[in-house]
């Protein structure tokens, strides 16, 4: 029994969450530091995982397996492939910055009672989410994954509903109302998805008799387990629906703008950059891994939905008045790319999609957190309330621009690599889809640059004239993210090295080969 690295990686933030929650009301700052330290420790552990993972090795590594609920055929089974490693890295990387960015977001108001300890709760919940997300990336047991998939809704729900953005238009009452509406919408939407998935999970059990990803895949491979086509399709749909809600895929996306709009910027990042990735990750691992035939069957429809997401999301982003909602719709567009890449069933597409998950996480974090800093200064989320910020706060404007450029996937910044891979991968199999998707890059430029122009350029407004520039803490949050963006933009190899083998396995799961070029120009 080797050292249970994966469990520990997930356990550290979980324990940290409990400790943080236990910090007495008076020692608020201590709680913050504790949370920060825990998240950094987790980052270190994630780095160890990254280091211990051998790209050349087995598909799932660092595996752990313990009996859990025999009657349900459930085991506590962990293991990571390259994709898991990459996403664990992303999660562990982002959380410290989220914590740091949300440093003051949950300080209690004077009006609140002394026994109410929002700060402790805020950071405890964030860590709890981190723990669950990391564990869900590690789970190779469908049931275990499902449980985490559902359970992580609860802390997210409290984060959204309990700690809303203080910058809102209108009275506190209707702000609170909007907030809890957003939180409830988030929860019910995802819960509904999860329950549909529950039916499918049960169905899977009835068919397969256990929940071990590896065993089921094996059994399917050597024909011990053959699902009826219709069964497989129904189960696939059950799973996919849940993931599509989480991802979110058009037309199941409407919870995201509300949630991201009402939540504080760090929480919004947590939603779109970290938690939603579980959905796309699960499509790659479970939909394709468990139901290859059905996946192929559903591909055309899904590609179409993904395309709609791409264009639709971008167009709506253009039409937004609220900075955070704009970013939310941009994310919807990007998730369209990710899903398209996954279901393009080419190694470029899937590698691209995986990189995209990571890169989108980082770029959105950069953009959204800076936006959060901006909003916290002016106390408004409306684009129209800004203008000429770059004059007063050039660094803020500059970082905002870089975040934006990453979002429109400018070469040299990480998202470009992934987006181009997805496009190529899709184009290779579905040329029309590929071409339509490229319009996304124009629209992306449109909403990003319009946002930048309206907020940062032009003559300075009264309120923005003496806006303070980024503070040290905020700079510490943004600078590393930008550095990573550039690094992964010009040298993504460390990431591709771990991802490629995993993608190779997935491709063999679905028994797909890359379409070979028309001319073998290998001279």
């Amino acid at each position, binding site marked *: 029994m080797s050292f249970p690295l994966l469990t520990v990686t997930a356990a550290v933030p979980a324990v940290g969450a409990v400790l943080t929650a236990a910090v007495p009301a008076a020692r608020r700052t201590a709680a913050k530091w504790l949370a920060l330290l825990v998240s950094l420790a987790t980052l270190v552990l994630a780095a160890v995982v990254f280091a211990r993972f051998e790209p050349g090795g087995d598909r799932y590594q660092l595996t752990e397996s313990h009996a859990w609920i025999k009657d349900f055929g459930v085991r506590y089974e962990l293991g990571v492939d390259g994709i898991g490693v990459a996403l664990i890295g992303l999660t562990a990387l982002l959380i410290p910055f989220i914590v740091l960015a949300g440093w003051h977001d949950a300080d209690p108001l004077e009006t609140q009672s002394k026994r109410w300890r929002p700060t402790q709760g805020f950071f405890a919940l964030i860590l709890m989410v981190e723990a669950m997300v990391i564990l869900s990336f590690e789970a190779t047991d469908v049931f275990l994954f499902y449980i985490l998939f559902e359970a992580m809704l609860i802390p997210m729900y409290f984060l959204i509903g309990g700690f809303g953005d203080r910058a809102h238009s209108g009275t506190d009452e209707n702000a609170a109302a909007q907030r809890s509406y957003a939180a409830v919408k988030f929860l019910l939407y995802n819960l509904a998805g999860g329950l549909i998935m529950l039916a499918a999970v049960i169905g899977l059990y009835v068919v397969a008799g256990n929940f071990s990803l590896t065993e089921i895949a094996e059994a399917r491979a050597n024909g011990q387990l053959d699902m009826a086509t219709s069964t497989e399709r129904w189960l696939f749909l059950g799973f996919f629906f849940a993931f599509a809600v989480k991802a979110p895929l058009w037309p199941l996306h409407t919870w995201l703008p509300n949630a991201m709009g009402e939540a504080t910027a760090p929480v919004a990042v947590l939603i779109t950059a970290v938690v939603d990735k579980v959905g796309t990750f699960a499509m790659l691992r479970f939909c394709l891994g468990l139901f290859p035939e059905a996946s192929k069957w559903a591909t055309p429809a899904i590609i179409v939905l993904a395309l709609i997401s791409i264009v639709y999301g971008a167009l709506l982003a253009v*039409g937004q008045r609220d900075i955070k909602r704009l970013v939310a719709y941009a994310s919807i567009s990007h998730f369209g790319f990710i899903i398209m890449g996954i279901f393009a069933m080419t190694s470029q597409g899937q590698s691209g999609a995986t990189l995209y998950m990571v890169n989108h996480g980082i770029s959105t974090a950069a953009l959204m957190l800076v936006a959060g800093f901006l909003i916290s200064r002016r106390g408004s989320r409306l684009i129209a309330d800004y203008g000429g910020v770059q004059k007063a706060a050039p660094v803020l404007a500059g970082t905002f621009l870089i975040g934006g450029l990453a979002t429109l996937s400018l070469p040299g910044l990480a998202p470009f690599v992934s987006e181009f891979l997805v496009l*190529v991968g899709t184009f290779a199999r579905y040329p029309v889809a590929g071409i339509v998707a490229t319009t996304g890059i*124009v629209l992306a430029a449109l909403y990003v640059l319009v946002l930048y*122009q309206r907020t940062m*350029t032009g003559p300075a407004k009264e309120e923005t004239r003496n806006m303070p520039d980024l503070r040290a803490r905020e700079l510490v949050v943004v600078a590393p993210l930008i550095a990573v963006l550039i690094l992964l933009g010009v040298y993504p190899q460390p990431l591709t090295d771990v991802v490629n083998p995993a993608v190779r396995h997935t491709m063999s799961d679905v028994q797909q080969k890359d379409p070979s070029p*028309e001319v073998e120009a290998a*001279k």
Partner: protein
Amino acid sequence: MDNLIALLVAAPLLGAAVLLTGGRRLDKAGHWLGTLLAAVSFVIGLVLFADMLGKSADDRTLHQTLYTWIPVEGFQADIAFQLDQLSMTFVLLITGVGTLIHVYSIGYMEHDERRRRFFGYLNLFVAAMLLLVLADNYLLLYFGWEGVGLASYLLIGFWQHKPSAATAAKKAFLVNRVGDMGLSIAIMLMFTTFGTFAFGPVLDAAAGGDASEGKLTAVALMLLLAACGKSAQVPLQSWLGDAMEGPTPVSALIHAATMVTAGVYLIVRSADIFNAAPDAQLVVTVVGAVTLLFGAIVGCAKDDIKKALAGSTMSQIGYMVLAAGLGPIGYAFAIMHLVTHGFFKAGLFLGAGSVMHGMNDEVDMRKYGGLRKYMPVTFVTFGLGYLAIIGFPGLSGFFSKDKIIEAAFAKGGTEGWILGACALLGAAITAYYMTRVMIMTFFGEKRWQPAPDPDKAASVEPGADAHPGELPHPHESPKSMTLPMILLAVGSVGAGAFFEYAGFVEWLEPVTGFEHGHSPLSAAAVTTATVVVMLLGVGVAYLQYGRRPVPAVAPRGSLLTRAARRDLLQDDFNHVVFVRGGTHLTRSLVYVDHSLVDGVVNGTAASVGGLSGRLRKLQNGYARSYAVSMFGGTAVLIAATLLMRAV
């Protein structure tokens, strides 16, 4: 030797990084550092050039592979450079002109507190442009391609506090993005067709005729789309005019000498693909011909000196594209004209900048006049540039343009005639509007106006020392500005002849290939025709502006004039179709998203709630009605059970 190539890019990149992250403490020396690093990379370029000359024509190509950029199953993108004669030409042009313009900017931007950042952007541009021309595969080229786009965005919008500047920058980037779509699709096509997008294999395969012509045509057209975006060719030309919102050195370097010619580079670089796709080539020539006339006409109507020059840039690049479209008979000339144009157009812009510098940043030529006495150096350099561009015999423009016109005729067939005619007409119009600019600016009587009042101060380039309300005091610009102008003037004069006799065509041949076109007209005939139409244009312009006084306020003018002032209604078209249409689309989509997509969800929730409310009424509190439901339930239960047995 080949290891130096990376340094070419690295030097200005380093500069950009340092200047942009360095912070205020660099404000003092920032511009020097920037200029120095640009110069460094120019020197490296010269060294490589010397080395290249030392080799035989066929093995002059250098390669340097740094590392694999994107390694994915079956998809290999390297960070690797290829330096051949074509790239070399560009390297020298970019670094050379670039360095000069850095020097010029030192003086021009003196009074701008954000000068450090300006030089950072300039360095960034140089680095990206070098990456563009040095890349050895299309994806890396795309990297540089977008890089220069970014730099141009940042520089056009350098005075971000001017809404017009910010808008222009955004517009430039967006229009270019449309072109970039073309480039990325082209790359995808290459990948699916050849399984790679490195120059070597792709072009060999294209030349080898392995791929179907249809595929190649598609690739070529997509590349053309990209070129149109970057080089402001119809239909994606609309951004160039607005781009003049940027500081004048930027207009000179990016929007005249280098970046806008990237499209031509792309076409020439992909020569083998285009050669294999004649239909695409025809389209290219058409685009070129249309643009060269379009730009020229626009240039005639503009009173803003920079916009007039912008129109002319458009038109000159039209020439290059036209030439590039002609295939092996034209590639070399396209590049040749590109270089000479680099010299004289840059010179003209710097001259314009110098004039504005002296005239409180007034750009309206109708408010100039008689400046030759006040700024002699500017006058002379500008004049030489003028002569060069109109193709005055002996000056650089003469050689390059003449060759293109000749090649156009040599295309043969009716196309040949039509294209040739367009080219000639273009030459005439060029002569006309350039003479117009020349006369309105330097001759005639003063039409100066008081400097714009402070409230418009936002739109004043901080480079100027304006005294509101007073008449301007035109004065010669400082050395740092005149020196580059002089050097460029030298280039404008000599470059053409030098290339003609130093064998530029042979120099490029290994890369672009070359064959002599067989023109239906003799070379002499074409040349004379060119000169004649040129003189014609000059004459007309002289009659119109030299003899009569120039009205300080533009006359209403003919329909064509008014259309031309508005860029031949291009923007109006864009506005109606894309801007307004797009706005409506997004608005309606926002509505749809809220009421339809989201409405369905909320609707379901609401209907369940309603159902609940109705069912709730059954619970009316009367024990007996409960008993009724029990009784009925039992009855149903019994009935169902019996029924089950029955069926």
